């Protein structure tokens, strides 16, 4: 992705309020600013974050204008929840890389039995994006490490595989700069486990 021309890379983060999409956006900002890029990051959410859907538009390149990604221009979709991934499927470029946390959080209408949670979301993505779809067991990995809340950093670890030019120290530097001390060690482990989960299989 380290093109020298004026290409801007578009990363869309999507999830449910409270899943850590905002922290993840801050980690990306830290890393790509450190790497010398112009960066724009935009948080889009409805009334506060009371369990509603939350997205962050993250863009980096030599010079970035719009704070929002144009629909259809997403290079990377990093989703913390399956339905919230699907909600942005039309935003993605044909050859986009799709990284999804294998977690379902039922929206109220589904909880009430008034709507159906879509079936087999990974298969829908694979139909359009073939081998560019990566499902990460973020919840499971983070729970094993002792805190399900760290699933977002597991995803960041998995995501880091797509940026070979960015050294691990930069990601870890961002974690150190942004996280409170008492949960840092756990999150560094979460990053490593996440990274290992896709190691060698990303294209």
């Amino acid at each position, binding site marked *: 992705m380290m093109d020298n021309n004026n290409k801007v890379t578009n990363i869309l983060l999507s999830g449910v309020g409270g899943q850590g999409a905002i922290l993840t956006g801050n980690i990306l900002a830290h890393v790509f600013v450190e790497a010398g890029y112009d960066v724009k990051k935009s948080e889009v959410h409805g009334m506060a974050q009371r369990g509603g859907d939350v997205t962050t538009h993250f863009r980096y390149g030599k010079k970035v204008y719009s704070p929002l990604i144009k*629909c259809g*221009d997403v290079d990377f979709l990093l989703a913390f929840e399956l339905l919230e991934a699907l909600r942005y499927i039309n935003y993605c470029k044909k050859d986009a890389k799709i990284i999804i946390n294998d977690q379902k959080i039922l929206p109220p209408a589904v909880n009430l039995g008034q709507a159906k949670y879509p079936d087999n979301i990974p298969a829908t993505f694979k139909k359009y994006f073939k081998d560019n779809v990566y499902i990460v067991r973020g919840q499971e990995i983070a729970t094993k490490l002792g805190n399900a809340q760290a699933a977002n950093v597991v995803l960041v670890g998995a995501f880091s595989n797509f940026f070979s030019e960015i050294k691990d120290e930069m990601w870890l530097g961002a974690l150190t700069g942004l996280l409170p001390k008492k949960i840092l060690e756990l999150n560094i482990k979460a990053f490593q486990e996440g990274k290992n989960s896709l190691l060698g299989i990303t294209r």
Partner: protein
Amino acid sequence: MKKILQGNEAIARGAWEAGVTVACAYPGTPSSEILAEIAKYKEVTAQWSPNEKIAVEVASGAAIAGARAMACMKHVGLNVASDPFMTLAYTGIKGGFVIVVADDPNVHSSQNEQDSRNWARFAKVPMLEPTDAQECKDLTKIAFEISEKFDTPVLLKSTTSISHSDSLVEPGERQESPVALGLDEKQASKYVMLPANVRARREVMEERMRRLETYADEFPCNVMEINDPRIGVITAGAAYMYTKEVFPNYSYLKLGMIWPLPKRLISDFFRKVNKVIIVEELDPFLETEIKALGYKIFHGKDLIPNMYELSPEIVERSLKGNAYKAPKIRVNLEDLPKRPPNLCPGCSHRALFYSLKKLGVFVFGDIGCYTLAAFPPLQAIHTTICMGAGVGGAYGAGKALGREGLGKICAVIGDSTFLHGGIGPVMETVYNKGYSTTIILDNRTTGMTGLQEHAGTGYTLKVEPTNMIDYEQLVRALGVKHVRKVDPYNVKETMETIKEELNGDEASVIITENGPCMLHRREKRKFQFLYFMIDTGTCRGCRACLEIGCPAISWTEREGMTKDGKTRKGTVSINRLQCPGCGLCAQVCKFESIVPGHEDADDGQQ
């Protein structure tokens, strides 16, 4: 070295660098972060005011005393503050005075979608509009200089997509204000707005506007970029960024100052390009003014929507028309279940609104998290207009309906909202002999905008202990004779209390107690049990507990039987990680199938 800052952080930084010493605000999305950020600087007296009008009055007093001062608010906040604001445009100030107003196109979190640029024209004050975080900082600093140079309040306008996006900013040093502090009695004719003085100031305003128009032509952030001369775009704010993104080769006149307009620069631009398109969010503000100057434009609001937020694809689609190539639709998004925001698990508002729903009353609502009780399944709020409107509305409805309305009408208002705009209408209800009941939902914080302190929490913005309002004493002093307190988590008692007061023929106030916001760290309610769980042996699958809309409770369709042989279509389950143990659902269940959980209970969850 450049730092990545959110637009609101950059505004705070700019104000600090400009030597601001007094900053006031009432929280409101998308402006709230500005004050939280500026409070971190020790040189600044930063405070949450009870409402935007008071914030503007306080900051204007500081500016009249010579300080550089700022008041920040969301778009609707300026409606509240418009009274002092409109007249301060006549008096001017001494130290720099900047009002930040953040609009919310697309209504992410507001009760309307008004375009604040109209205030600049209406009040005859200059308005600046940034396009990114660097400009948020730069324009804030320049705003103070303009304010002092032209002796006028200055509006700095932002929007959600500028306030809530981060980009690189070159930080600078703080420079103390060049203006000397001090009050001058001899300036009374400038500040006492009696008719004779007003007429004199009226002329000063017109003269000031003429000088500002000349200044606008030289303003460094009104920038002309001549590329392809066939099409020129006049634009500002986020709309510039979207248009530049999709049409990088067009020529641009980017306006950093959108009022007054730079007439000479606009005339130059029309000479340099063949056709002019105006791209702006919401109202045809620039378009109307530019057309009034006698120019013919190629396109404007005939193509660009005058509603909602713009985006790169909306600008591209609008301007390209049939030539626009839409992105591929892989999934029809309309078919996906929506995910509206919801009250948190354990929220005391859920319990209170469940009681109101059961009582079947018409609820005049207000602005806050509790407005979410309007969504299904609770659907227990029936109006939401503006801060304070619910209390007056309930009183007025009672006047219209007379005794027919007795027992059927109530108003709800949050603690912060009550202090913002609810005191006056309670006074009105008593004074004019109304009977409506006002329920103050005291969750000990300004919840919706991110837990800001207010005059009822006992702490200032800088978290220093201070006086704490006693709501009961306050409303008694207003003349309310019937003041009750309820524990909202006790549904039976809450319903009885509300019912009694609704049927009383004098004004009453009910205050919820011990129901702090679930996200509050300082004030936490200790629930008796750690969490609740479903006794799957007795759950009849009646779905009554789903009617409270708690995110921790979900339905699983699976035909089966209870242990005593009753058939059922499915059962519910409670997510142990989400459930804080408030016990509302257990009170709703008729079959006693929701039972307290304990550390080693086996409900199939860990």
